[in-house]
């Protein structure tokens, strides 16, 4: 303010060390008189040492004393002005706290005529389209490079290079083919994930109705700009953030963005700058749905600048945990590759000591490198995951990222959003209380003839509601607040026709609720003359109006409210007669079918459930009680203290009034505490949490696009019990993969010991090509058979494997060492008597028998797939031993009869042992109470 004139000033610069502030004043340019006035006025203020207003630059320099109090004051006031320069987005950060007229002025728009068409074009060029950019995909080249940049591939390629140097071109071809195969599988898995993420861009809205040049027009929502005057009505999805400048009974469902289950009544009133998103009643936010009334609003932010854009950015920035399986397998393969390199070194030294040729030394080194790496592991892992994915797909569970299937098995904490996830996000009349009696929902809907006290109560509720009704051959379509919709649906179910009712009792006026009077009064004409008034609202206040009533109304109200129901009282009167109490109506957002079962089942499977909801604390508490969840209930505001305290973090069962970033914080804290966290949600506000969790689960076909696109798993139907089924599948995959990995590594160890042992005694036992054959055939196919087994029925009756546990524990390694040594010993003995060919025959055949011993036992013995894979690969291995060209190709020398005898012996003995002793051993161990699968 200057001489009673309001000057729009923008802070250009604050030089802190020199205590100089420079402002820009739009009207100062060329106005020397104004410059002198500013200098005089500002110069007289305390703390200001010098003022220079320059009419040539339109700027004012203010130099301040170091301790000037005015400094912070000026910074505070000048900052919002900077953001409010012409056409710039006002931003949700402040528009809600300003009067609508101020926002419209700041955006250089008009509350009546909107923007000029040309100005809208200019702003579109300046601010860009109203679209969300979303995720930027990794380039194909980078993806391909990632598949090759790992230790096992590097070692395999080095082996190929060494083979090429010595002219073993067949080995080179075989190794390069294996590397290419594995890289292709990895590339395809990652590329699919990338393509799905790219689908984020489709989270767009269609057309929008705006006023430009004073005329209403429909424009593509992407063409909206800050300052546009937007028209919204019931059924619209809000296309941009906007400040309401005019509204009529506007109700907006913001549950997708804020998690608040009740539709929010909007008004033009500004609220405090610090108000939470859910409390900014003067704003409309992109992605929310108008459920009642209509409004004009001036667009304050578009595209990435909207709150939805901020949530999406949060979702993009949230660290998505790398698939645990992939990282653990990478680590395992890396360790094995290094151990192969070490064995190569030992073998090379031994071979040099034996004065073998350089060619032989290098061939053994290559064979060892190839032997150490489980080349079939990516194929078997992928196949197991794909099969589990297909099984889940049949149950209506869509897995979007392959690695998630395994991660499901390790879940220790399941976080769930309340509205729309545990509940249906659709209010329903649960009970009424009339004439001292409580009637449950089933009794209400069974009424056939719309007469009597129930019909009067429902008819009065419908008359008092502000809803739009449409009737077609599918039935009734009602739009308006979810509470009033629930009452209307109950009335229709009880045989009341709301359209006919309205025409019989035309409404004369409607008095809205206010902060003081928390009820709605409607007045209707009576056909016989006079008026009928209906009041509906907060029971304590409605009862105060009533003179005719009976029964302990307030006690019943308290009982219903304590049970998590939303209670309204209804009363009526004719003309000036006293108000007559008609009854109480109790509504709730009902639990989804199976929600309570799912939470009980999760507890049985050792999984803790935490509810994260944007709802009020009492609502959240009631839902927790209903699903049988015990533990501490806290609010979002208490989170910083709770998250810092591990003990309290373990106690929480419900967090109420949470924001999207609170949800992320809870999940990150749980993950930091070592838990494997799943998040189930359906709204836009859940998207960042879905992305942060180890497994994000979008619940239901009605979940928002953003939730579905961010989640790892999408449930097609809304039965939460299917999450448990998915966890069961995950645990089966974990069990099978552990057995399969154990089997394949035992085989690799056998080869490693055999070749190293051979080198130590100066013999070359198996060629690199022979090793590759064994790894890809006798290792991989039985490994695949084990990985595809159907799993045990009691997977959900035991706790998950401890988080952070490696794929193979100490016990597994001990068993691998035993099996590997046994395979190497029998193959070594065969090599002594029958040369490399017998060793080759034995090492492959012994693995088939070992595979049978790795199966889970309490299952149908004659699994056709298992038998087909084992006997198919046994036949191929037999062919490799028996056919001369194959022997020649793999450089295997030795007498054929000895090799065939070794083959038969090695194949038969373990199978016989497994069939006789294997099952009994497992049963004995399980009887001791070992949770984890323990096959010999």
């Amino acid at each position, binding site marked *: 303010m200057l001489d009673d004139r309001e000057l729009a000033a923008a802070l250009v*610069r604050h*030089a*802190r*060390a*020199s*205590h*100089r502030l*420079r402002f820009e004043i739009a009207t100062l*340019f*060329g106005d020397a008189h104004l410059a002198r006035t500013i200098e005089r006025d500002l110069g007289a203020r305390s703390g200001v040492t010098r003022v220079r207003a*320059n009419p*040539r*630059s*339109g*700027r004012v*320099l203010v130099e301040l004393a170091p301790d000037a109090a005015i400094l912070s004051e000026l910074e505070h006031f000048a900052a919002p002005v900077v953001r409010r320069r012409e056409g710039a987005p006002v931003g949700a950060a402040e528009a809600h706290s300003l009067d609508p007229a101020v926002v419209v002025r700041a955006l250089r728009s008009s509350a009546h005529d909107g923007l000029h068409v040309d100005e809208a074009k200019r702003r579109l060029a300046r601010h860009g389209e109203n679209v969300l950019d979303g995720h930027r995909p990794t380039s194909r080249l980078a993806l391909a490079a990632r598949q090759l940049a790992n230790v096992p591939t590097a070692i395999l390629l080095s082996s190929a290079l060494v083979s090429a140097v010595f002219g073993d071109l067949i080995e080179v071809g075989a190794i390069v083919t294996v590397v290419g195969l594995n890289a292709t599988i990895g590339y395809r898995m990652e590329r699919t994930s990338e393509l799905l993420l790219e689908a984020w861009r489709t989270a767009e809205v269609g057309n929008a109705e705006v006023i430009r040049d004073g005329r209403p027009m429909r424009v593509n929502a992407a063409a909206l700009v800050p300052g546009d005057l937007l028209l919204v009505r019931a059924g619209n999805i809000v296309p941009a953030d906007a400040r309401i400048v005019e509204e009529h009974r506007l109700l907006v469902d913001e549950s997708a963005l804020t998690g608040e289950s009740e539709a929010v009544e909007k008004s033009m009133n500004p609220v405090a700058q610090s108000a939470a998103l859910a409390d900014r009643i003067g704003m409309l936010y992109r992605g929310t749905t108008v459920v009642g009334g209509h409004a004009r609003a001036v667009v304050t932010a578009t595209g990435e600048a909207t709150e939805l854009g901020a949530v999406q950015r949060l979702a993009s920035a949230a660290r998505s945990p790398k698939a645990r399986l992939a990282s653990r397998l990478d680590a395992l393969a890396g360790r094995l590759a290094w151990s192969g390199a070490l064995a190569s070194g030992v073998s090379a030294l031994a071979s040099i000591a034996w004065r073998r040729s350089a060619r032989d030394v290098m061939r053994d080194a290559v064979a060892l490198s190839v032997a150490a790496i489980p080349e079939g592991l990516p194929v078997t892992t992928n196949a197991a995951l794909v099969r589990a994915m297909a099984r889940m797909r049949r149950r209506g569970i869509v897995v979007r990222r392959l690695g998630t299937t395994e991660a499901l098995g390790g879940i220790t904490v399941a976080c769930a959003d309340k509205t729309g996830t545990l509940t249906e996000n659709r209010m329903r009349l649960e009970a009424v209380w009339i004439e001292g009696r409580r009637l449950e929902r089933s009794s209400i809907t069974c009424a056939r003839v719309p007469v009597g006290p129930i019909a009067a109560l429902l008819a009065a509720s419908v008359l008092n509601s502000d809803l739009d009704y449409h009737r077609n051959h599918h039935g009734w379509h009602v739009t308006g607040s979810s509470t009033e919709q629930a009452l209307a649906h109950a009335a229709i179910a009880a045989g009341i026709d709301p359209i006919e009712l309205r025409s019989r009792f035309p409404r004369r006026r409607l008095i809205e609720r206010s902060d003081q009077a928390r009820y709605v009064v409607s007045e209707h004409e009576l056909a016989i003359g006079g008026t009928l008034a209906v009041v509906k609202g907060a029971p304590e206040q409605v009862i105060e109006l009533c003179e005719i009533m009976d029964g302990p109304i307030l006690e019943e109200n308290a009982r219903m409210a304590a049970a998590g129901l939303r209670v309204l009282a209804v009363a009526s009167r004719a003309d000036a007669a006293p108000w007559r109490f008609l009854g109480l109506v109790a509504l709730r957002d009902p639990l989804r079918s199976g929600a309570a079962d799912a939470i009980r089942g999760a507890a049985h499977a050792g999984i803790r459930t935490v509810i994260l909801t944007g709802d009020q604390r009492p609502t959240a508490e009631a839902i927790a009680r209903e699903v049988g969840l015990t533990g501490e209930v806290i609010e979002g505001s208490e989170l910083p203290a709770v998250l810092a305290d591990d003990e309290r973090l373990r106690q929480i069962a419900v967090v109420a009034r949470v924001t999207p970033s609170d949800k992320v914080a809870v999940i990150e804290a749980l993950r930091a505490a070592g838990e494997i966290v799943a998040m189930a949600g359906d709204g836009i506000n859940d998207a960042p949490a879905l992305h942060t969790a180890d497994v994000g689960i979008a619940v239901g076909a009605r979940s928002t696009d953003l939730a579905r696109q961010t989640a790892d798993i999408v449930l097609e139907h809304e039965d939460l019990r299917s999450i448990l089924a998915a966890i069961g599948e995950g645990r089966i995959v974990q069990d099978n993969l552990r057995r399969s990995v154990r089997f394949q590594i035992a085989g690799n160890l056998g080869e490693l010991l055999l070749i190293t042992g051979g080198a130590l005694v100066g013999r070359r036992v198996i060629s690199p090509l022979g090793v590759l054959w064994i790894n890809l055939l006798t290792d991989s196919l039985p490994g695949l058979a084990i990985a595809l087994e159907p799993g045990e029925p009691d997977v959900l009756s035991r706790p998950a494997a401890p988080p952070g546990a490696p794929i193979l524990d100490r016990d597994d390694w001990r068993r691998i060492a035993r099996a590997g040594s046994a395979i190497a010993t029998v193959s070594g003995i065969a090599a002594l008597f029958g040369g490399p060919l017998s060793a080759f025959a034995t090492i492959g055949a012994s693995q088939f028998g070992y595979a049978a011993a790795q199966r889970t036992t309490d299952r149908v013995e004659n699994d056709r797939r298992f038998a087909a894979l084992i006997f198919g690969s046994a036949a191929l291995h037999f062919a490799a031993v028996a056919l001369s060209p194959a022997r020649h190709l793999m450089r295997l020398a030795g007498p054929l009869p000895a090799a065939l005898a070794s083959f038969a012996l090695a194949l038969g003995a373990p199978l016989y042992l497994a069939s006789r002793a294997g099952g009994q051993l497992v049963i004995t161990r399980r009887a001791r109470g070992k949770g984890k699968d323990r096959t010999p």
Partner: protein
Amino acid sequence: MKLHVPSFLIGVSLGAGGAAIAPRMRAVALEIATTFYKLGDAIVVRVARGREDVADLLAEAKARARGQLSRVVTVHAEA
């Protein structure tokens, strides 16, 4: 003097055309003059603001240097 008909016709048509478009020329001239003024103003603003930016920069640099120097001097004096 002999009448040169083509020159006469050109002169007449130019005069008539000029008289006809003169009112419209004013708007064009105004637009051109406004553009020149805007250009001139933009140059003046740019130059003035550039000088101010340099002055701010130097003032800040000087203040920082003197501030650091005084701290060094104080530390030495205390030592």
